[in-house]
């Protein structure tokens, strides 16, 4: 007989204060996200010090809300999982120290989770994983292709060499004077536009699964600059569509090529940019054609949340991985396979 495992997840790596209870790594019992977006809007982006201040104001209320929505007492929990990194250091420290104090007060095991592992395991909350699989993690901070042979084995086969995709979306949105956060506005304009401005596709070396978005972003800025110099009015919707088409074509192309080369049984997408309609539609169509099962979690599980941290934390718990009271927030934490990690993390 196996006992049910209830893991409390805590996530504060950027501008969402989040806590969640997940059962057996697959079932969301509660999922609370306190967004700070309204506070950061006026600055045109996330201000780390402001984010950290909000986290400390809300952290215990958010955890309490997650427990109360789950209708659970701390002693019914199996363990506490928290985002250890990467992310904004001041923001990470709030979640990490709250998780440590909560685990200590309640005598619970503590598990430090890599944020990207969390994004990947968000999928397990809607669809069981089938290995080997390929994960596309695409967000404001990340653009990575990760090959997984089994639970907790991560092989980063491609990553961005400059901006993350979401970062490029935000910068282009700003140059088009769209409100923060700009990604969804670019997506909306791109869907609406009939016209398109042609921008280059950056494929890098033929064999590479890496990405580069800074050249594309510069091409958009140049286009705007040239239009202004000629005294012409630029068409923001056509620019948004042209930019998005370039990102979508390259990301889809590389993801499909990697999936075929590695012979995976499943492809999953995760991260805030995976919510982009243009990208979703393109990936779905491409993998339907290839006959490879493809999944994207629903929007609230694509963006930062704590259920994904609890989901990844559950499998880490099952693999015997634990953290100590000396766990730190690690802004530059690298994604490692858990078996390698467990060798020296205890």
């Amino acid at each position, binding site marked *: 007989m196996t006992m049910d495992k209830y893991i409390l997840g805590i996530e504060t790596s950027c501008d969402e204060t989040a806590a969640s209870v997940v059962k057996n790594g697959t079932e969301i019992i509660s999922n609370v996200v306190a967004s700070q977006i309204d506070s950061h809007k006026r600055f045109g982006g996330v201000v780390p*010090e402001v984010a950290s201040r909000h986290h400390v104001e809300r952290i215990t209320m958010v955890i309490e809300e997650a427990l109360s929505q789950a209708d659970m007492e701390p002693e019914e929990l199996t363990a506490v999982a928290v985002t250890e990194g990467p992310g904004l250091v001041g923001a990470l420290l709030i979640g990490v120290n709250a998780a440590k104090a909560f685990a*200590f007060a309640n005598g619970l095991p503590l598990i430090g989770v890599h944020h990207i592992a969390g994004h990947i395991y968000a999928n397990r909350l809607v669809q069981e994983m089938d290995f080997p699989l390929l994960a596309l993690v695409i967000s404001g901070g990340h653009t990575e292709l990760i090959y997984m042979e089994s639970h907790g084995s991560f092989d980063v086969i491609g990553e961005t060499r400059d901006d993350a995709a979401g970062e490029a979306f935000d910068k282009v949105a700003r140059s088009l004077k769209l409100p923060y956060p700009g990604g969804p506005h670019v997506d909306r304009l791109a869907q609406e536009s009939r016209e398109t401005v042609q921008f280059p596709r950056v494929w890098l070396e033929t064999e590479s699964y890496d990405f580069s978005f800074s050249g594309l972003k510069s091409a958009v800025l140049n286009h705007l600059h040239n239009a202004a110099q000629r005294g012409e009015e630029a068409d923001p919707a056509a620019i948004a569509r042209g930019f998005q088409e370039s990102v979508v074509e390259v990301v889809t192309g590389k993801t499909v090529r990697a999936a075929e080369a590695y012979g995976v049984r499943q492809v999953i997408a995760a991260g805030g940019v995976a919510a982009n309609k243009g990208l979703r539609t393109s990936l779905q169509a491409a993998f339907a054609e290839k006959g490879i099962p493809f999944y994207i979690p629903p929007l609230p599980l694509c963006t930062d949340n704590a259920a994904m941290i609890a989901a990844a934390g559950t499998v880490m718990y099952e693999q015997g991985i634990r953290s100590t009271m000396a766990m730190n927030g690690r802004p530059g934490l690298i994604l490692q396979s858990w078996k390698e990690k467990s060798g020296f993390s205890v």
Partner: protein
Amino acid sequence: MTWLGIDTSNSPLAVGLVKDGVTLIEETSNLKINHSLTAMPAVESLLHRASLKPGDLTHIAVAQGPGSYTGVRIGMTIAKTLAWSLGLPLVPVSSLKILAANGRYFNGMICPIIDARRGTVYAGTFKGPSLLSAEPEAHQELSDLLGRLETAEGTILFAGSDASQHEETIRNALGDRALFLGSHNRLPRASELIRLAMEETPVNAHAAVPEYRRLAEAEANYLKARKGPAT
């Protein structure tokens, strides 16, 4: 009554346990190691050595700032999470007052100072030996503080390690009226934090927040820009 006290608001780490008014154990380390690495292990070790469990605690005291933004938040996050998890009263105490308490038997004005860079300090003044607040705590130019103290009366005892960092400037302004606590008496002590906390009212753990005494830089710039250029 068993109090746990935590101060991570500046570079020293001070933790301690006081049971029924008697200090069981207290530690101050000045090794400048990241509080996130050391604070919870220190709490764990303290309780272990005192043969206590988290559930044996009855009160939590915490230094609530001003100080290093990150440092203040680490202590506050740990303290409020422990207090809420264990259902205990939480008492935040000013980090400046904790430093002033090292000179609490001085019969005159005590001025704790925490450096805030670029010629500015966090400071306030307290009357010894009652430690009643005389001048409210604020983030200010050191020169403004000294300007006001020049016109005050009597000797002034400066407290905290950062006061000695500015000793020359302070002596230039106040001459013999400025006294300084010795180097063995400049670091925060958890037993003093707890003693001060016993005199104050507990707060709701959820609502407990640091006292930064200063806006985030982006916030200050935003407010300045909204008011428009100064005329």
